[in-house]
């Protein structure tokens, strides 16, 4: 049999070698004279936990890894399009500065991923901002300080910052100065953050952490939004007391008319409920197909109203998932129970709604009213899945009996009740 591999064009070999852990790729240098430097011109360098030597001593592992990366960079020749270091074994080490300096000199690098150890956060060097061709930047556990004259990454499409120490206005400016930005993920900044996002091409936004305020000032093309919003107890209380008439719901959602998918967890529903009820919304979310809201407090009439306004502004909804939060406040007075009749538009139908999932159900009146409303207005519904909450102490039979009576607009609808 002939040697069919050694004479493959470099582009194919590149494709093969970049699928190997980098250590294996470098080891091919010993195969034959032809192979000596084939590894050295691959355009993607990924250093992760796979290239870590086995040792119980964290220091030894770190030293060995630093040596490995430095030597690989030194022997490499040709452009580097992707550089990734993602391992918890690298804590603060000054060599990172030199690696980034090396990358920024040729400034061919398009994807830069740095996910470091959690104990000490490296402050990334300013030469990082010289990497003009960056399309993907993914940083985790480090400190970022854009220089004042930084004009932005003109090619950046995707930005992910996780546990990054950076000032709020620095992030805002960074986002604003990357005109092609489509994909943005922000999670767990050090302090609770109030942030304004201006990104005219943004399509996908993911936010998780402690935010006091999120203002989507200029994101008209947004397709997918996912928010996990935590709040410190004192901030939450402050929101309760605030009598602002400025409705968060309107402020937050009316600037994203093209939304296709919306997911919110933790305090998100509560955050939206702050401010006065806007009444029926002036816009409809014609493209919104998927809504997932978790930890909604069904005992809080304001949150229920937000839910109601949201779903009755989404005529083309296809999938709806909702879960109830822990009951914190005492049940609402009975006279609020007719809001579903009062506030839902008459003859409302969800023309496309096929799948509904309700979890952590407690069987309380507003939840049952939601089920009744959904069943009665979804002519193409296929499945509704209901999982009771583990705290559901009431008689489940009572809830099921009530459920059975609800009128169903879809003759094909299956109601699936999940036991633990």
């Amino acid at each position, binding site marked *: *049999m*002939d*040697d*069919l*591999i*050694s004479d*493959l*064009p470099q*582009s*194919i070999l590149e*494709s*093969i*070698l970049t*699928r*190997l*852990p980098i*250590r*294996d790729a*470098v*080891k*091919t*240098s*010993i*195969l*034959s*004279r032809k*192979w*000596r430097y084939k590894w050295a011109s691959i355009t993607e360098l990924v250093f992760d936990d796979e290239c870590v*030597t086995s040792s119980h001593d964290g220091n030894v592992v770190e030293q*060995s890894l630093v*040596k*490995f990366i430095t*030597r*690989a960079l030194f*022997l490499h020749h040709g452009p580097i399009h992707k550089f990734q270091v993602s391992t918890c074994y690298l804590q603060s080490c000054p060599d990172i500065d030199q690696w980034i300096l090396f990358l920024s000199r040729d400034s061919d690098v398009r994807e830069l991923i740095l996910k470091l150890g959690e104990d000490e956060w490296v402050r990334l060097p300013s030469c990082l901002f010289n990497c003009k061709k960056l399309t993907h930047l993914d940083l985790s556990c480090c400190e970022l300080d854009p220089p004042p004259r930084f004009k932005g990454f003109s090619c950046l499409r995707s930005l992910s910052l996780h546990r990054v120490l950076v000032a709020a206005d620095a992030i805002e400016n960074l986002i604003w100065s990357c005109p092609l930005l489509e994909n943005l993920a922000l999670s767990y900044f050090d302090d609770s953050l109030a942030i304004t996002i201006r990104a005219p091409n943004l399509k996908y936004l993911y936010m998780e952490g402690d935010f006091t305020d999120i203002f989507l000032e200029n994101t008209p093309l947004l397709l997918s939004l996912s928010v996990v919003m935590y709040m410190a107890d004192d901030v939450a209380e402050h929101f309760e007391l605030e009598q602002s008439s400025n409705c968060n719901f309107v402020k937050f959602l009316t600037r994203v008319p093209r939304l296709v998918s919306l997911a919110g967890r933790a305090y998100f529903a509560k955050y939206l409920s702050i401010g006065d009820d806007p009444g029926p919304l002036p816009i409809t979310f014609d493209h919104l197909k998927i809504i997932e809201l978790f930890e909604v407090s069904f005992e809080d009439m304001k949150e229920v109203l937000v839910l109601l306004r949201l779903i009755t502004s989404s005529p083309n909804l296809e999938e709806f998932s909702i879960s109830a939060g822990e009951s914190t406040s005492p049940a609402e007075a009975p006279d609020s129970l007719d809001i579903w009749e009062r506030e839902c538009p008459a003859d409302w139908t969800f023309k496309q709604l096929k799948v509904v999932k309700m979890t952590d159900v407690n069987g309380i009146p507003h939840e049952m009213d939601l089920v009744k409303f959904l069943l009665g207005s979804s002519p193409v519904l296929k499945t509704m899945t209901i999982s009771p909450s583990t705290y559901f102490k009431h008689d489940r039979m009572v809830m099921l009996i009530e459920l059975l009576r609800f009128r169903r607009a879809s003759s094909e609808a299956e109601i699936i009740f999940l036991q633990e």
Partner: protein
Amino acid sequence: MSSSPPPSSAAASPSCPKKMIALRSSDGETFEIEEAAALQSKTLENMIDEDCAGTPIPLPNVTGKILAKVVEFCSKHAEPGVDDESLRAWDAEFVNVEQATVFDYILAANFLEIPTLLNLTCNVVADMIRGKTPDEIRKFFNIKSIFSPEEEEEVRRENHWAFE
């Protein structure tokens, strides 16, 4: 479910015949492939755009034996309604062939610019390399190592940090 009609003539309804493209291999065999399947290949997509009134597209770099399999691959991947798991299983069977054939697929996928096939076959070759010692790799691919002992020593020294 979409309410607008299918955009291209390639999406066929039972009454309307699918558009077929003719391909000729290096050894003169002709094959027919549905347009939707042919569009998996960027090379063919470009050639179809510059339509040459239905004459078979000559592919001098691909033999009949391999072209037949490539057509099969593209057709399978253009089939609607195949779930991911069955497609993966089908792919695994497709590349369960001898080494020389895998490399023929790679070269064909490269020439015809079929990303799915190139991905699949490069993964296969990477799996063949992963975890093997240099000697095992040489043996597996029949790579002749013509290092002199001094050269080999030099390379080992240069890359000792990777072998540690």
